[in-house]
Protein backbone atom coordinates (compact mmCIF):
# COMPACT_ATOMS: atom_id res chain seq x y z
CA UNK A 1 0.00 0.00 0.00
CA UNK A 2 1.29 3.45 -0.92
CA UNK A 3 0.24 6.63 0.87
CA UNK A 4 1.37 10.16 0.15
CA UNK A 5 2.06 12.63 2.94
CA UNK A 6 2.22 16.34 2.21
CA UNK A 7 3.57 18.82 4.73
CA UNK A 8 3.02 22.56 4.51
CA UNK A 9 4.73 25.77 5.67
CA UNK A 10 6.98 25.24 8.72
CA UNK A 11 6.45 21.47 8.66
CA UNK A 12 7.58 21.45 5.04
CA UNK A 13 10.72 23.44 5.91
CA UNK A 14 11.61 20.82 8.50
CA UNK A 15 10.46 17.59 6.87
CA UNK A 16 10.12 18.13 3.13
CA UNK A 17 6.94 17.20 1.33
CA UNK A 18 5.23 14.78 -1.04
CA UNK A 19 6.64 11.85 0.86
CA UNK A 20 5.53 8.44 -0.39
CA UNK A 21 5.38 5.79 2.28
CA UNK A 22 4.36 2.16 2.27
CA UNK A 23 2.72 1.57 5.62
CA UNK A 24 1.60 -1.81 6.84
CA UNK A 25 -2.10 -2.60 6.92
CA UNK A 26 -3.76 -1.14 9.97
CA UNK A 27 -1.40 1.85 10.30
CA UNK A 28 -3.18 4.83 11.83
CA UNK A 29 -2.84 8.42 10.73
CA UNK A 30 -0.95 9.28 13.93
CA UNK A 31 1.54 6.42 13.48
CA UNK A 32 2.04 7.31 9.84
CA UNK A 33 2.87 10.98 10.51
CA UNK A 34 4.95 10.14 13.57
CA UNK A 35 6.95 7.63 11.56
CA UNK A 36 7.98 10.30 9.10
CA UNK A 37 8.38 13.14 11.61
CA UNK A 38 10.67 11.22 13.93
CA UNK A 39 13.41 11.36 11.31
CA UNK A 40 13.92 14.98 12.31
CA UNK A 41 13.81 15.94 15.97
CA UNK A 42 12.78 19.53 15.29
CA UNK A 43 10.13 18.39 12.85
CA UNK A 44 8.78 15.93 15.37
CA UNK A 45 8.66 18.58 18.12
CA UNK A 46 6.91 20.98 15.76
CA UNK A 47 4.07 18.51 15.15
CA UNK A 48 3.86 16.44 18.37
CA UNK A 49 3.85 17.40 22.04
CA UNK A 50 6.16 15.64 24.53
CA UNK A 51 3.44 13.01 25.17
CA UNK A 52 3.43 12.13 21.49
CA UNK A 53 0.06 13.68 20.71
CA UNK A 54 -0.48 16.12 17.88
CA UNK A 55 -0.15 19.74 18.98
CA UNK A 56 -3.62 21.24 19.20
CA UNK A 57 -3.00 23.64 16.32
CA UNK A 58 -2.06 20.95 13.76
CA UNK A 59 -4.48 20.59 10.85
CA UNK A 60 -4.84 17.11 9.39
CA UNK A 61 -6.57 16.30 6.15
CA UNK A 62 -7.13 13.01 4.43
CA UNK A 63 -8.02 13.18 0.73
CA UNK A 64 -9.15 16.77 1.16
CA UNK A 65 -11.34 16.06 4.20
CA UNK A 66 -10.51 17.31 7.66
CA UNK A 67 -9.69 14.66 10.26
CA UNK A 68 -10.24 15.72 13.87
CA UNK A 69 -7.05 15.27 15.90
CA UNK A 70 -8.90 13.13 18.43
CA UNK A 71 -9.79 10.70 15.63
CA UNK A 72 -6.29 10.50 14.12
CA UNK A 73 -5.19 7.68 16.41
CA UNK A 74 -8.12 5.50 15.31
CA UNK A 75 -8.19 6.45 11.62
CA UNK A 76 -6.54 3.74 9.56
CA UNK A 77 -4.93 4.80 6.29
CA UNK A 78 -5.77 3.10 2.99
CA UNK A 79 -4.12 2.59 -0.38
CA UNK A 80 -3.78 5.83 -2.36
CA UNK A 81 -4.59 8.13 0.56
CA UNK A 82 -3.19 11.62 0.41
CA UNK A 83 -2.55 13.06 3.85
CA UNK A 84 -1.97 16.80 4.38
CA UNK A 85 -0.44 18.09 7.60
CA UNK A 86 -0.14 21.79 8.24
CA UNK A 87 0.16 24.49 10.89
CA UNK A 88 -1.72 27.77 10.75
CA UNK A 89 0.70 30.33 9.32
CA UNK A 90 0.61 33.23 11.78
CA UNK A 91 2.77 36.17 10.70
CA UNK A 92 1.55 39.34 9.07
Amino acid at each position, binding site marked *: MTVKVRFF*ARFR*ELLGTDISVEPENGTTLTDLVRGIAKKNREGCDAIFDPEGNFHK*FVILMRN*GKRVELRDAGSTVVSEGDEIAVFPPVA*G*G
Partner: protein
Amino acid sequence: MLSEHELERYGRQILLFGKKGQEKLKGSEIFIAGAGGLGSPVSIYLAVAGIGTLTIVDNDTVDRSNLNRQILHYDRDIGKEKTASAEEKLSQINPDITVKVINKTIDETNVLQLVGKTDGIVDAMDNYPSRYLLNKAAIKKKIPLFHGAIRGFHGQATTIIPGKTPCLACIFPSATPKEVFHVIGATAGLIAMVQATEVLKYIIKDGNLLTGRLFIWDGLEAHAEEIKVEKDPRCTACGLGKTASSERRRE
Protein backbone atom coordinates in the same frame (compact mmCIF):
# COMPACT_ATOMS: atom_id res chain seq x y z
CA MET B 1 -20.51 60.93 -8.71
CA LEU B 2 -16.97 60.78 -10.00
CA SER B 3 -15.10 63.99 -10.82
CA GLU B 4 -13.28 64.52 -14.14
CA HIS B 5 -10.12 64.10 -12.16
CA GLU B 6 -11.24 60.72 -10.79
CA LEU B 7 -12.41 59.53 -14.20
CA GLU B 8 -8.89 60.18 -15.41
CA ARG B 9 -7.13 58.70 -12.37
CA TYR B 10 -9.11 55.48 -12.47
CA GLY B 11 -9.52 55.34 -16.26
CA ARG B 12 -7.73 52.04 -16.74
CA GLN B 13 -9.85 50.20 -14.20
CA ILE B 14 -13.07 51.95 -15.23
CA LEU B 15 -12.42 50.20 -18.57
CA LEU B 16 -12.55 47.00 -16.54
CA PHE B 17 -15.61 47.46 -14.34
CA GLY B 18 -17.21 50.72 -15.43
CA LYS B 19 -18.06 53.96 -13.64
CA LYS B 20 -20.60 52.09 -11.53
CA GLY B 21 -17.87 49.82 -10.17
CA GLN B 22 -15.64 52.78 -9.44
CA GLU B 23 -18.48 54.54 -7.65
CA LYS B 24 -18.98 51.45 -5.50
CA LEU B 25 -15.31 51.56 -4.53
CA LYS B 26 -15.58 55.28 -3.77
CA GLY B 27 -18.62 54.69 -1.59
CA SER B 28 -17.03 51.91 0.41
CA GLU B 29 -15.12 51.77 3.64
CA ILE B 30 -12.51 49.15 4.54
CA PHE B 31 -11.01 48.45 7.93
CA ILE B 32 -7.38 47.30 7.86
CA ALA B 33 -6.17 45.72 11.09
CA GLY B 34 -2.41 46.24 11.11
CA ALA B 35 -0.01 48.54 9.26
CA GLY B 36 2.82 46.01 9.00
CA GLY B 37 3.92 43.46 6.41
CA LEU B 38 0.45 42.69 5.05
CA GLY B 39 -1.18 45.99 6.01
CA SER B 40 1.33 48.06 4.04
CA PRO B 41 0.77 46.58 0.57
CA VAL B 42 -2.96 45.97 1.17
CA SER B 43 -3.53 49.60 2.12
CA ILE B 44 -1.40 50.94 -0.72
CA TYR B 45 -3.29 48.94 -3.35
CA LEU B 46 -6.71 49.68 -1.87
CA ALA B 47 -5.76 53.37 -1.75
CA VAL B 48 -4.70 53.52 -5.39
CA ALA B 49 -7.83 51.58 -6.39
CA GLY B 50 -9.91 54.38 -4.90
CA ILE B 51 -11.61 52.78 -1.88
CA GLY B 52 -13.37 55.86 -0.46
CA THR B 53 -12.37 55.42 3.17
CA LEU B 54 -9.58 53.34 4.65
CA THR B 55 -9.36 52.92 8.39
CA ILE B 56 -6.04 51.57 9.62
CA VAL B 57 -5.41 50.41 13.16
CA ASP B 58 -2.00 49.73 14.66
CA ASN B 59 -0.36 50.51 17.97
CA ASP B 60 3.26 49.99 17.01
CA THR B 61 6.12 52.28 16.12
CA VAL B 62 8.39 51.73 13.15
CA ASP B 63 11.49 49.66 13.90
CA ARG B 64 14.46 49.25 11.57
CA SER B 65 13.79 45.49 11.47
CA ASN B 66 10.32 46.18 9.97
CA LEU B 67 11.73 47.74 6.83
CA ASN B 68 12.41 44.54 4.86
CA ARG B 69 8.66 44.11 4.36
CA GLN B 70 6.59 47.00 5.74
CA ILE B 71 6.78 49.14 2.64
CA LEU B 72 4.60 51.98 3.95
CA HIS B 73 7.42 52.93 6.29
CA TYR B 74 10.74 54.46 5.27
CA ASP B 75 14.10 54.68 6.95
CA ARG B 76 13.27 58.21 8.12
CA ASP B 77 10.16 56.91 9.95
CA ILE B 78 12.04 54.77 12.47
CA GLY B 79 10.57 55.52 15.90
CA LYS B 80 7.41 57.08 14.44
CA GLU B 81 3.92 55.67 15.00
CA LYS B 82 3.07 53.32 12.16
CA THR B 83 -0.37 54.90 11.86
CA ALA B 84 1.12 58.38 11.38
CA SER B 85 3.53 57.03 8.79
CA ALA B 86 0.68 55.19 7.03
CA GLU B 87 -1.57 58.25 7.00
CA GLU B 88 1.18 60.40 5.51
CA LYS B 89 2.09 57.98 2.72
CA LEU B 90 -1.42 56.91 1.79
CA SER B 91 -2.77 60.45 1.56
CA GLN B 92 0.13 61.31 -0.74
CA ILE B 93 -0.38 58.18 -2.83
CA ASN B 94 -4.04 59.12 -3.30
CA PRO B 95 -5.27 62.49 -2.01
CA ASP B 96 -8.78 61.72 -3.31
CA ILE B 97 -9.56 59.18 -0.59
CA THR B 98 -10.10 59.51 3.15
CA VAL B 99 -7.54 57.82 5.37
CA LYS B 100 -8.44 57.38 9.03
CA VAL B 101 -5.92 55.99 11.47
CA ILE B 102 -6.35 54.69 14.98
CA ASN B 103 -3.28 54.27 17.14
CA LYS B 104 -4.58 51.51 19.40
CA THR B 105 -4.14 47.84 20.17
CA ILE B 106 -7.20 45.84 19.20
CA ASP B 107 -8.54 44.02 22.25
CA GLU B 108 -11.71 42.34 23.42
CA THR B 109 -13.13 45.54 24.90
CA ASN B 110 -12.67 47.79 21.87
CA VAL B 111 -12.79 45.58 18.78
CA LEU B 112 -16.49 46.12 17.98
CA GLN B 113 -16.22 49.86 18.39
CA LEU B 114 -12.98 50.13 16.39
CA VAL B 115 -14.34 48.07 13.51
CA GLY B 116 -17.41 50.31 13.49
CA LYS B 117 -19.54 50.38 10.36
CA THR B 118 -17.33 49.06 7.64
CA ASP B 119 -17.82 47.09 4.44
CA GLY B 120 -14.94 44.70 5.06
CA ILE B 121 -12.22 43.82 7.53
CA VAL B 122 -8.73 43.04 6.29
CA ASP B 123 -6.81 40.74 8.62
CA ALA B 124 -3.26 42.08 8.50
CA MET B 125 -2.43 40.97 12.03
CA ASP B 126 0.60 38.93 13.08
CA ASN B 127 -0.99 36.69 15.72
CA TYR B 128 -4.03 34.47 16.20
CA PRO B 129 -5.45 35.94 19.44
CA SER B 130 -6.00 39.25 17.59
CA ARG B 131 -7.29 37.42 14.54
CA TYR B 132 -9.87 35.58 16.64
CA LEU B 133 -11.12 38.97 17.92
CA LEU B 134 -11.51 40.21 14.34
CA ASN B 135 -13.24 36.94 13.44
CA LYS B 136 -15.75 37.35 16.28
CA ALA B 137 -16.40 40.97 15.33
CA ALA B 138 -16.89 39.95 11.69
CA ILE B 139 -19.40 37.26 12.72
CA LYS B 140 -21.28 39.54 15.09
CA LYS B 141 -21.52 42.39 12.57
CA LYS B 142 -21.89 40.12 9.51
CA ILE B 143 -18.97 41.81 7.79
CA PRO B 144 -16.60 39.88 5.49
CA LEU B 145 -13.13 39.12 6.83
CA PHE B 146 -10.24 38.92 4.39
CA HIS B 147 -7.66 36.66 6.06
CA GLY B 148 -3.98 36.52 5.20
CA ALA B 149 -0.91 35.24 7.02
CA ILE B 150 2.76 34.78 6.16
CA ARG B 151 5.91 33.08 7.38
CA GLY B 152 9.20 32.75 5.52
CA PHE B 153 8.42 31.93 1.90
CA HIS B 154 4.99 30.58 2.88
CA GLY B 155 1.62 32.26 3.05
CA GLN B 156 -2.10 31.61 3.19
CA ALA B 157 -5.30 33.53 2.52
CA THR B 158 -9.04 32.99 2.56
CA THR B 159 -12.19 35.09 2.41
CA ILE B 160 -14.72 34.66 5.17
CA ILE B 161 -18.35 35.66 4.65
CA PRO B 162 -20.09 35.24 8.02
CA GLY B 163 -23.05 32.88 7.88
CA LYS B 164 -22.00 31.46 4.52
CA THR B 165 -18.43 30.25 4.78
CA PRO B 166 -16.35 28.62 7.48
CA CYS B 167 -15.05 31.25 9.90
CA LEU B 168 -11.41 31.58 10.91
CA ALA B 169 -11.94 29.46 14.03
CA CYS B 170 -13.59 26.69 11.95
CA ILE B 171 -10.43 26.49 9.85
CA PHE B 172 -7.89 27.13 12.61
CA PRO B 173 -9.40 26.30 16.00
CA SER B 174 -6.07 26.65 17.84
CA ALA B 175 -3.23 29.13 17.55
CA THR B 176 0.43 28.28 17.12
CA PRO B 177 2.70 29.54 19.93
CA LYS B 178 3.87 33.12 19.45
CA GLU B 179 7.28 33.46 17.82
CA VAL B 180 9.48 35.97 16.02
CA PHE B 181 8.73 34.75 12.53
CA HIS B 182 11.17 34.94 9.64
CA VAL B 183 9.80 36.41 6.45
CA ILE B 184 10.66 38.19 3.23
CA GLY B 185 8.74 41.24 2.04
CA ALA B 186 7.85 39.53 -1.22
CA THR B 187 5.78 36.89 0.62
CA ALA B 188 3.87 39.65 2.43
CA GLY B 189 3.33 41.41 -0.89
CA LEU B 190 1.99 38.32 -2.61
CA ILE B 191 -0.51 37.38 0.11
CA ALA B 192 -1.53 41.03 0.54
CA MET B 193 -2.31 41.18 -3.19
CA VAL B 194 -4.62 38.18 -2.85
CA GLN B 195 -6.40 39.98 0.00
CA ALA B 196 -6.62 43.31 -1.85
CA THR B 197 -7.97 41.61 -4.98
CA GLU B 198 -10.61 39.86 -2.87
CA VAL B 199 -11.70 43.17 -1.30
CA LEU B 200 -12.09 44.78 -4.72
CA LYS B 201 -13.99 41.78 -6.14
CA TYR B 202 -16.29 41.76 -3.14
CA ILE B 203 -17.13 45.43 -3.53
CA ILE B 204 -17.65 45.46 -7.28
CA LYS B 205 -19.34 42.03 -7.07
CA ASP B 206 -17.27 40.30 -9.72
CA GLY B 207 -15.64 36.89 -10.04
CA ASN B 208 -15.51 34.05 -7.55
CA LEU B 209 -14.40 34.94 -4.07
CA LEU B 210 -11.82 32.84 -2.24
CA THR B 211 -14.56 31.43 -0.02
CA GLY B 212 -14.55 27.93 1.41
CA ARG B 213 -11.01 27.60 0.12
CA LEU B 214 -7.67 28.19 1.77
CA PHE B 215 -5.10 29.53 -0.69
CA ILE B 216 -1.65 28.24 0.19
CA TRP B 217 1.53 29.68 -1.29
CA ASP B 218 4.98 28.13 -1.22
CA GLY B 219 7.44 30.65 -2.61
CA LEU B 220 10.39 28.25 -2.47
CA GLU B 221 8.60 25.88 -4.83
CA ALA B 222 6.84 28.73 -6.67
CA HIS B 223 3.70 26.70 -6.12
CA ALA B 224 0.21 27.76 -5.14
CA GLU B 225 -2.60 25.43 -4.22
CA GLU B 226 -5.86 25.50 -2.39
CA ILE B 227 -7.47 23.35 0.22
CA LYS B 228 -11.21 23.08 0.57
CA VAL B 229 -12.30 24.20 4.04
CA GLU B 230 -15.60 23.49 5.72
CA LYS B 231 -17.73 24.89 8.50
CA ASP B 232 -17.26 23.18 11.83
CA PRO B 233 -20.72 22.68 13.33
CA ARG B 234 -19.11 22.65 16.79
CA CYS B 235 -17.08 25.81 16.15
CA THR B 236 -16.69 27.96 19.28
CA ALA B 237 -16.97 31.18 17.28
CA CYS B 238 -19.77 30.55 14.77
CA GLY B 239 -21.23 27.10 15.51
CA LEU B 240 -22.91 25.21 18.30
CA GLY B 241 -19.76 25.51 20.41
CA LYS B 242 -20.46 29.23 20.63
CA THR B 243 -23.32 28.75 23.09
CA ALA B 244 -21.44 25.95 24.84
CA SER B 245 -18.44 28.20 25.46
CA SER B 246 -20.59 31.09 26.70
CA GLU B 247 -22.40 28.62 28.98
CA ARG B 248 -19.03 27.58 30.31
CA ARG B 249 -18.07 31.21 30.88
CA ARG B 250 -21.25 31.76 32.86
CA GLU B 251 -20.50 28.76 35.02
